[in-house]
């Protein structure tokens, strides 16, 4: 019996394609080597600094808990900054995501500027926003809250808009045919299906904001980060260890709570 054979010819890379691949690989390797040089990566310096690190680590034990109450208050400030910053971000993101979602806002005159604004907010880190806002509103956690809110608004709105765009248009078409206006259609046909995913994104950003707010103190925006910077500056490594332990507990607890809530929502 004859073997049935198809006339199908699988695609083989031409010499030109193969050469192009090699050139792309070489370019990526060169880029990476340049990055290593510019970043001044030097294993010898790390090796030389290890004994100093070990000395500091030894000096950090036992941890200094003499100002535990103050540190706990600062930790509370960090959680508050992350929570309030995220909630302000959510409020800003709600209208922005609707304007940016192509399936909701079909006018390019509205959606393109909205997307550009989201990219600006997302592209500038909360740390940089806080640094600028400390100059405007003074030292303290409020600058941190505003910095977190602006960056979170951009990130949340972008992720929300993408989430809304992936929703099947069928239910929206069906409810539109009932004669309902745009807002009613969004509330009734879009929101119920997309809400768990929106809430999950907001929770993820809350978790992220609290992690970010632990370092905002470095630029004078209050919180546990401020205490960390002061202790490092004064070489109080036993106090640094206490602060790091508190940060770890906070971040782990918030991560677990957020992950649990997101599992419940989806």
């Amino acid at each position, binding site marked *: 019996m004859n073997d049935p054979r198809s006339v199908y010819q699988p695609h083989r890379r031409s010499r030109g394609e193969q050469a192009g691949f090699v050139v792309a690989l070489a370019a990526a390797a060169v880029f990476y080597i340049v990055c290593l040089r510019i970043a001044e990566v030097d294993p010898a310096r790390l090796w030389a600094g290890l004994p100093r690190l070990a000395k500091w680590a030894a000096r950090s034990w036992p941890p200094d808990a003499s100002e535990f109450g103050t540190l706990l208050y600062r930790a509370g400030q960090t959680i508050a900054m992350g929570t309030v910053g995220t909630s302000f971000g959510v409020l800003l993101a709600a209208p922005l995501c609707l304007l940016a979602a192509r399936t909701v806002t079909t006018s390019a005159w509205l959606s393109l500027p909205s997307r550009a604004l989201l990219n600006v907010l997302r592209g500038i880190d909360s740390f940089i926003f806080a640094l600028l806002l400390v100059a405007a509103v003074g030292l303290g956690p409020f600058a941190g809250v505003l910095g977190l809110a602006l960056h979170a608004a951009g990130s949340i709105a972008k992720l929300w808009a993408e989430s809304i765009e992936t929703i099947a248009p*069928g239910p929206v078409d*069906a409810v539109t045919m*009932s004669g*309902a206006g745009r*807002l009613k259609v969004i509330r*009734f046909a879009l929101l119920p*299906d997309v809400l768990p995913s929106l809430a999950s994104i907001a929770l993820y950003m809350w978790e992220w904001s609290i992690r970010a707010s632990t370092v905002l103190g470095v630029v004078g925006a209050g919180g546990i980060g401020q205490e960390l910077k002061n202790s490092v500056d004064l070489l109080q490594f036993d106090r640094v260890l206490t602060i790091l332990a508190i940060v770890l507990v906070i971040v782990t607890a918030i991560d677990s709570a957020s992950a649990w809530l997101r599992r419940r929502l989806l």
Partner: protein
Amino acid sequence: MPVLVASDLTKAFGGRRVLDGVAVSVAAGTFVAVLGESGAGKSTLFRCLSRLIEPESGEISIDGALYTGLQGARLAAARRQVGVVFQQFNLVRRLSALDNVLAGRLADVPLWRVMLHQFDLAHVQQAAAALEAVGLGAQIEQRADTLSGGQQQRVAIARALAQQSRILLADEPVASLDPVTAAAILGLMKSLARSRGMAVVCALHQPQLAAQFADRIVVLKNGRLEEVSPSCPTPSVV
């Protein structure tokens, strides 16, 4: 007088003319089946008739009033006369059967009530009655995505009932259902056409189902509708 009249509808995609002068007229209480091959343009026709997409030319009127050309609030008001049932049901998955049917009443409910999801008892009872009319009285509070395909399609029909529309456009409503459920759904649509005087236009793939349930059969071919005898739909054209 016909409830739905469409004349000279045209629609093209990428240079291909999918609808080329389609004309159809449907009287109250009549079940019209639209047959056609896959890709013949049945879904395009239904989306044009409902104005989910715009025809390039031609006119559609409902009860003698022009439907094409309306915009904004006037279009929304006219849409209340057009109930639509889709092949993929298009229910809001995370809402209950009752909530999905209440969607048919949204135009009558103030915005703040919709935002707070607070409906009048009268609207709730109307929606429940619509579900009972399609045989889903026991599934009123069940979430849409836990219902079977046939049940979901019944919810979609109940949504059109709650809307109290004059026209029911059904785009291949039984394409994804088993034969027994398909016959039950089409029987239900036919009885609604009779009892409520709705003008039903239903796209189908199977000529035998069209012959069994439709009062009139039209075939969409080469962008135009041709009327065929309900007792003998020509299988060669579908």
